[in-house]
């Protein structure tokens, strides 16, 4: 008899394992908003400026990275039946390394000094090494036929490529060595990071959570079987195409990018369609965040491909700023935000219930995370994104956009902290006493 080795049904890891990441994420979003207010319209001068690089990394490594790392450590036991070993130590180490790492990286860009960049390289490099090793081991033990596990594996693979390229580029800033390939490496770095790590993780996780939260039909089998592998293969092809002779390079890259974009478009359209077919009539904040996110993803893909075909379009939207805001703030931040509003109240309920069973009544998810607070934050975000995108056309819009985005991030943090306080207050009631701080 061949039972899967290492399969585990153990309960969720201690609450601070994901929460230390979740509570940190909006603070980076807030820093990004402050940076936008400070640098204002000058951000739109060129995407290669240090201030833009700092902004991008606060949003991606800071907000998205924190939330995604935390969510993945939380979800692996459930979706893959394979928890991360030593979750407390791993979470603590990864958090303690990444948090100052992101700050120093942003500072290194902004102030153009060498030492923060060098320390950031060390911190981010070791933080991601620990994370990838721990998550990689867990994914290796997971059942190989789950499309979500497959998607997560490709996403982690893309993360490794992104991080390696990122470290190479950072060393260029840290030591000023002559890096002739810089532009090419930057394109590789951001494509692997956004389409690979972020895109593939969202796709893989969607296969589970979209049907689960709204009771939609499942994603079509051929899609879940092939899509993430195909996109990963296309990213590899695209990377190789960078080094083809100039004569064929452009067409080859355009072809590959278009096919990958079609892959993501199919995913977004299928997701929106499944959500229309949901059996659960109750609409909620998570659903609205996802619909908004998928719509932004579609717009970003259309704009991205159109920009490749018609270069004037790229110049008009100021060096692809509209595209970047649509993908990062519109798609990725929305999806992650929506997920947090399900994961966080549920986790708190779950931990409280095992603590308080038979002692006292446990607050339900809506009491832990009240709907009105989530809705307010959601509308601020929905208002911020179009303004961010339009600021690529008319830069002064960056000010109201940043104000809205920053306020939305503050409210998100307030909502998360409110929920966490409900946990702390109720956990005190347990006769067993509060669980250890981890």
């Amino acid at each position, binding site marked *: 008899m061949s*039972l*899967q080795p290492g399969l585990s*049904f153990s309960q969720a890891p201690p609450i601070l394992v994901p929460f230390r990441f979740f509570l940190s994420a909006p603070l980076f979003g807030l820093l990004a908003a402050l940076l936008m207010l400070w640098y204002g319209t000058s951000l739109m001068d060129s995407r290669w400026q240090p201030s833009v690089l700092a902004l991008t990394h606060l949003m991606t490594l800071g907000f998205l990275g924190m939330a995604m790392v935390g969510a993945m450590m939380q979800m692996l036991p459930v979706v893959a039946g394979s928890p991360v070993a030593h979750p407390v130590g791993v979470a603590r180490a990864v958090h303690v390394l990444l948090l100052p790492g992101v700050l120093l990286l942003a500072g290194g860009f902004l102030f153009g000094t060498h030492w923060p960049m060098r320390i950031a390289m060390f911190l981010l490099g070791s933080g991601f090494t620990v994370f990838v090793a721990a998550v990689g081991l867990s994914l290796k033990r997971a*059942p190989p036929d*789950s499309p979500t596990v497959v998607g997560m594996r490709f996403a982690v693979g893309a993360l490794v490529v992104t991080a390696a390229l990122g470290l190479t580029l950072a060393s260029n800033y840290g030591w000023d060595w002559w890096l002739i390939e810089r532009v090419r490496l930057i394109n590789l770095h951001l494509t692997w990071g956004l389409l690979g790590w972020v895109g593939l993780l969202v796709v893989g996780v969607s296969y589970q959570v979209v049907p689960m939260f709204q009771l939609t039909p499942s994603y079509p089998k051929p899609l879940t079987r092939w899509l993430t592998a195909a996109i990963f293969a296309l990213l590899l092809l695209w990377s190789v195409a960078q080094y083809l002779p100039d004569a064929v390079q452009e067409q080859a890259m355009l072809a590959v990018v278009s096919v990958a974009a079609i892959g993501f478009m199919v995913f977004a359209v299928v997701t929106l369609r499944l959500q229309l077919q949901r059996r*659960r009539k109750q609409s909620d904040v998570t659903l609205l965040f996802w619909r908004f996110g998928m719509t932004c993803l579609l717009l970003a893909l259309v704009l991205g491909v159109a920009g490749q075909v018609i270069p004037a379009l790229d110049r008009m939207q100021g060096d692809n700023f509209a595209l970047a805001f649509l993908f990062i703030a519109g798609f990725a931040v929305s999806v992650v935000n929506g997920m947090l509003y399900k994961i966080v109240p549920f986790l708190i309920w779950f931990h409280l*219930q095992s603590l308080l*069973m038979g002692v006292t009544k446990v607050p339900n998810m809506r*009491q832990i995370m009240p709907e009105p607070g989530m809705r307010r934050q959601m509308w601020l975000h929905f208002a911020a994104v179009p303004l961010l995108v339009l600021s690529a056309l008319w830069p002064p819009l960056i000010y109201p956009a940043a104000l809205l985005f920053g306020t939305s991030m503050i409210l998100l943090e307030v909502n998360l902290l409110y929920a966490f306080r409900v946990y702390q207050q109720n956990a005190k009631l347990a006769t067993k006493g509060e669980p250890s701080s981890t």
Partner: protein
Amino acid sequence: MDTISSYMTSDHHRCDELFAQAEAAASGQDWGTIAADLQVFLDSMHRHFKMEEEVLFPAFEQRTGMSMGPTQVMRMEHVQMRELFDAMADAVKQQDREEFLGQAETLLVMMQQHNMKEEQMLYRMVDQTLAGEMEEVLQQMRAAGA
């Protein structure tokens, strides 16, 4: 032929359907309908738990000798879900819509993550372990659920 996996997975979907119906009923004003729809849903859940706890889990535990393994975690989660059932029923008695919807939302996530673990791991292990006596176990489960 049904496998245990396919049989139990389709029963999950049937329960999901009834959950959605009970939750949708709560947007209306008629507490009688809400109570009735909730009862239909809860009956189907109790039936499902009964098939697992009285037939499937013991058979699996006996075959594998793993009584403190995955089935134990699933039983604990059943206990957690039963608490939510009670809370939903209480909310209907008190005609407290917000409380009902909050408990329903909590149950939905609890139930879905539980089903996910069963469908992707436990039932597959069960199909392997009980391959030789599949029909018999299915019959016993149907009888227990009748």
